[in-house]
């Protein structure tokens, strides 16, 4: 890929950590790039090197070898202060300080711009307030950090690196520990930031569904290398299946979903339409059945406008059920009898 329009690119990147003079390589010979304003999801299994890569980009872990170009300059040529004006970073580490107001935390983002005493001037104050507003935390300005929920705390951290005015925002699992609505809230915020403000955001996630649905590009880490591409490209080329498929989980490239592998179970002939058919199918699969449209074996009919109940017909007769739970329970008991 060409370097034009790239805000970040690395070649033959070797990253890892050094303890007692020994190099522990986590990533070897990795190549990837990011264009301005892109939202990039970093995925990979536990221990694959997601955090190592992000920490290396943020400059808090040394680059072992290779080149890492940020904003047209090698990371090695940046001073600490200059890099902090270009790259903002949020780790998985939560800031646990009592007596700290949200405003004070966000004000820390002005560190690269304030004088030796850290005086907050009028323009710093404006930047802080704008960042709080952007992150949806304006009304939390005077709240104490330890009174915030996990989602609010994450927003406050994002406000801090917005105040840092860095073009590149690096976040290590920004939605970990968040409930589903906060997860989507933060995801939406990240999308807004990359769309409106020309921020480039690189974030790691354990949620491949989220990566597929929101990222412009995915960096998939496997075997110490980075495979990059649009999420859909990686699905079609089978990279997702290779990464995730195991005895515990199956990735379905047809619809991008994950499910538990089903043992070769009894076949069930499922009839019905729409959401009733879909969720009945899910329940049957969970219970270990394979559904198809053939006219053989057990027949299960999902409710329709004509009859609002679930029906199950076999050689021994037809039964009706008021809900899926009863249907599955009955099927389970029936199996034992066989």
């Amino acid at each position: 890929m060409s370097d034009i329009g790239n805000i970040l690119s690395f070649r033959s990147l070797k990253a890892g950590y050094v303890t007692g003079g020994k190099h522990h390589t986590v990533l070897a010979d990795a190549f990837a790039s990011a264009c301005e304003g892109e939202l990039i999801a970093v995925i990979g299994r536990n221990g694959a090197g997601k955090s190592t890569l992000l920490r290396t980009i943020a400059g808090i872990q040394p680059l072992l070898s290779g080149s890492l170009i940020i904003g047209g300059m090698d990371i090695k040529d940046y001073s600490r202060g200059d890099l902090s004006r270009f790259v903002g970073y949020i780790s998985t580490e939560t800031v646990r300080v009592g007596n700290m107001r949200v405003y004070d935390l966000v004000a820390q983002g002005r560190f690269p711009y304030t004088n030796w005493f850290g005086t907050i001037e009028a323009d710093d104050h404006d930047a802080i307030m704008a960042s709080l507003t952007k992150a949806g935390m304006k009304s939390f300005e005077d709240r104490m950090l330890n009174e915030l929920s996990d989602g609010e705390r994450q927003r406050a951290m994002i406000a801090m690196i917005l105040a840092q005015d860095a073009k590149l925002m690096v976040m290590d699992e920004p939605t970990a520990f968040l409930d589903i609505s906060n997860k989507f809230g933060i995801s939406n915020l990240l999308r807004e930031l990359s769309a409106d403000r020309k921020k480039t955001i690189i974030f790691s996630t354990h949620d491949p569904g989220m990566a597929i649905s929101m990222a412009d590009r995915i960096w998939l880490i496997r075997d110490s290398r980075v495979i990059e591409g649009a999420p859909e490209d990686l699905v079609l080329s089978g990279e997702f299946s290779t990464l995730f498929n195991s005895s515990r989980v199956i990735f379905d490239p047809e619809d991008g979903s994950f499910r538990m592998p089903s043992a070769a179970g009894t076949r069930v002939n499922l009839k019905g339409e729409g959401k009733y058919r879909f969720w009945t199918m899910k329940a049957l699969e969970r219970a270990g059945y394979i559904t198809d449209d053939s006219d053989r074996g057990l027949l299960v009919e999902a409710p329709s406008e004509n009859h609002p109940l679930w029906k199950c017909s076999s050689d021994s007769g037809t039964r009706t059920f008021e809900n899926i739970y009863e249907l599955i329970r009955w099927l389970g008991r029936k199996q034992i009898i066989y």
Partner: protein
Amino acid sequence: MSGKKVLLNNSQPAFSGKRLIFAGLSAGLILFFLLDLFLGSVHIKPAETIRALFNGSDEVTRTIIIHFRLPRAVTAVMAGIALSMSGLQMQTLFRNPMAGPYVLGLSSGAGLGVAFVILGFPSEVSPENIKAAGNWAIAGASWAGAGMVMILIMIISSRVKNIMTLLIIGIMLSSGISAVVSIMQYFSSETMLKTYVVWTMGSLGNLTSGQLIVLALSVLAGLLISLLSVKILNALLLGENYARTLGLNLKSARIIIITGTSILTGTITAFCGPIAFIGIAVPHLVRIMFGTSDHKVLIPATVVTGALIMLASDLISQLPGSDNVLPVNSVTSLIGIPVVMWVIFRNQKTGDIF
């Protein structure tokens, strides 16, 4: 003063409340300073004391006030400021509420430096004989001793993350250093030993004017370095990783803080002996009173509160109205330990650092 300017900062909510507390503390500081001059084992009327300060009293009274009580009060102020400030800086640097110059062994390290100077040289060149140079030698050795312990703790703290573990390591270091000093004592002559033992008892009142000058200059220097670290300390609150990505040069930050705390703790330990629990307790009291983690507020508040509490401890130790004097170390311990205990219990409950 820069501290005042920040208290007026419009971004501080309820800042008038904080300003009131600050004014109250300052008034208390002046009051206790005067009380420290007025009260003592010899009864002198306040009016007489004031007159003595302005050369208007008889010879004896003037000697007591100018040569005994005034240096003592000034020393107490210096000691309070220096120990509290180094406690504040250490707590932020190690992100550990249990950090302080005494509990982590900095005072012991400084004591080792003093022991080297007092016990390590033949008595003809003992500090008492070489006067001014001796004072600086003792101060310098204390700085080096405190600095060494500080660097050791720094290295260890990067490997242990548990808050209480660091405390245990501090105790180990102190014990180890005491053992070394005991061995040195064993091989020392009687006169040297006597000088050293008198030193270890610690006191705010036995300073010569030469020592007072060294003390004042050193504390001033340490304080200036601490003032340089306001921004650094605020960033370090977030942890070293965040501080670095915000643009902090960790190495120079550590050097500044280690230098500042070593000078402050070392100087006080050199001339007043080890004084316990002021350094660890005062920053917590200040955080409770001011409800902030911003060092632009914490530093001036710690300076005033530290001086105030040390003056109060000195007053109590002199048991006004009686001829007895308590070791100031016992008083500071009795004031500081409850605060430290409270911090431990609260930390167990909230998991917050401060």
